[in-house]
């Protein structure tokens, strides 16, 4: 039996390890130059000292990477890096591109561990050069030891504060944090806090981060809204409202973060059922509790199902692998599966607290008419509203009306916003509205690439 694992983050790695431990052949396909996913990005290449400066949650990945490295020397694992998977079919045929050359292979099973994307926060100026996501800044820190200068962070969420602290460790503290959540969010969230060890440790980690920022004197402005970025050359002026008063702040770099949601590109292209998560304002692929989909021998693992973070993703990957084994006659894996699932449940409890505390603000999904929603085709919210008013029935017809979602990113950054906008105007639920029909290839490849599939190495 040969299994393709797509994505080499914590979910993908632990899924692969569980499979090769039972002598199953695994081919891991990962888009980045080295394994680890975004959470452990470049961890195998940075010095111990530099890794430690980015925090214990980053260093923790070393044991997983080490196990993968040891396994990579053996017969059962093939790790293919810098491979952009552009097609996965129901028949488990996987196509990928490396350096503008494509390859295709048929597998017996596929585990999708493609992680998450940062939620869009469409606002005036969010497409200007020098305005990036907080995650992008973290990737720069991890891969280039470069912390963008004179940064202002806008948004909220666990990653938001983590990256602010990492910038601090780099000796380049953010100029200010413009935080979108307010004190009433905190009160609402506290009801959901469960006094178990995992949750309390998580909470303590957050408090330590906030204390570090306070000691360093990083300015935190809470409950901001109506954010606009005016850019000229390399300087940005960020205008915002707080309690009805308008203020502004200058920055060289603006970093946005509104939490993350599952990357559903492949699960959508496979026509799997997805469910709208109202709290997280996103679609999630429908799976059973172990990651089985409605398609035989196709599984999803980690944040690609539901955002629970790296520790949960690691166990979710193991669950998917064990469920795959059980389905294919390895009855012995059954006991391991129920054990792994019990561990996984520990990480679910803190999520409700975080989801409520950092819930996406309503204004993210109902931007004014002049704001660009589709970054690729530069379609503004007004154009989408207008299309719906003259009879556009849903996201797919919207493509024909406006080209929204038809650019290179194929709806990754406008999809959930579009679903929300249409639902608001038509007066139906996002579940009823549905998502863009995502088609293979899910990454742009040239026709000549498809016409010239390469021999497998």
């Amino acid at each position, binding site marked *: 039996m040969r299994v393709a694992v797509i994505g080499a983050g914590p979910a993908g790695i632990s899924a692969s390890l569980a499979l090769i431990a039972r002598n199953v052949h695994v081919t891991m396909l990962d888009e980045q130059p080295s394994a680890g996913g975004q959470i452990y990005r470049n961890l195998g*290449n940075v010095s111990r000292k530099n890794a430690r400066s980015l925090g214990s949650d980053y260093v923790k990945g070393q044991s997983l990477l080490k196990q993968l490295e040891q396994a990579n020397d053996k017969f059962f694992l093939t790790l293919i890096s810098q491979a952009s998977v552009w097609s996965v079919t129901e028949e488990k045929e996987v196509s990928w591109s490396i350096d503008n050359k494509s390859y295709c292979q048929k597998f017996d099973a596929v585990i999708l561990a493609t992680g998450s994307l*940062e939620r869009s926060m469409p606002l005036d100026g969010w*497409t200007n050069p020098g305005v*990036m*996501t907080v995650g992008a800044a973290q990737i720069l820190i991890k*891969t*280039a030891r470069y912390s963008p200068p004179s940064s202002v962070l806008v948004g909220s969420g666990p990653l938001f504060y983590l990256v602010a602290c990492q910038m601090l460790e780099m000796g380049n503290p953010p100029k200010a944090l413009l935080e979108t959540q307010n004190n009433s969010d905190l009160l609402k969230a506290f009801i959901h806090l469960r006094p178990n060890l995992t949750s309390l440790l998580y909470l303590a980690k957050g408090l330590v981060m906030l204390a570090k920022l306070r000691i360093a004197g990083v300015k935190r402005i809470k409950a901001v809204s109506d954010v606009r970025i005016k850019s000229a050359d390399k300087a940005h002026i960020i205008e915002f409202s707080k309690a009805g008063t308008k203020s502004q702040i200058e920055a060289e770099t603006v970093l946005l973060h509104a939490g993350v949601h599952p990357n559903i590109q492949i699960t959508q292209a496979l026509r799997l059922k997805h469910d709208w998560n109202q709290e997280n304002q996103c679609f999630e692929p429908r799976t059973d509790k172990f990651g089985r989909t409605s398609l035989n021998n196709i599984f999803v693992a980690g944040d690609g199902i539901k955002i629970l973070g790296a520790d949960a993703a690691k166990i979710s990957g193991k669950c998917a692998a064990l469920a795959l084994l059980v389905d294919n006659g390895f009855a012995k894996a059954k006991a391991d599966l129920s054990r792994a699932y019990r561990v996984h449940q520990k990480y679910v409890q803190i999520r409700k607290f975080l989801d409520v505390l950092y819930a996406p603000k309503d204004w993210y999904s109902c931007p004014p008419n002049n704001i660009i929603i589709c970054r*690729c085709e530069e379609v503004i919210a007004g154009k989408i509203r207008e299309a719906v008013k003259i009879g556009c029935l849903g996201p797919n017809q919207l493509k024909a009306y406006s080209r929204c979602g038809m650019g290179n*990113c194929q709806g990754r950054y406008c999809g959930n916003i579009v679903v929300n906008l249409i639902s608001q105007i038509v007066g139906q639920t996002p579940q009823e509205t549905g998502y863009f029909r995502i088609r293979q290839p899910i990454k*742009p490849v040239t026709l000549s690439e498809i016409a010239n599939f390469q021999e497998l190495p």
Partner: protein
Amino acid sequence: MPKSFFYFDEKKIYFEQDMSVAAALLCAGVTDFRQTQVLHKPRGPFCMMGACFDCLLVIDGMVNQQGCMRLAKEGIKVKRQTSNALSEIN
């Protein structure tokens, strides 16, 4: 050892190991990577992880190359991608 570099248009961009083309450019203070297709506005990297396609560049004559997904290499020729880059090349 001399530092490695590549050319971005006429400008020398120095880089270190494990840096992507986009990271090297950002470190050198370049944020404007391309001109957008519809409104012809400047655009630069947004997600840095291969998802947003905002960091598209012309690399060694190939258009629409994701700067954040290509490791920087000595001697590559990188160009800012203009709105009509496709028609210029074909």
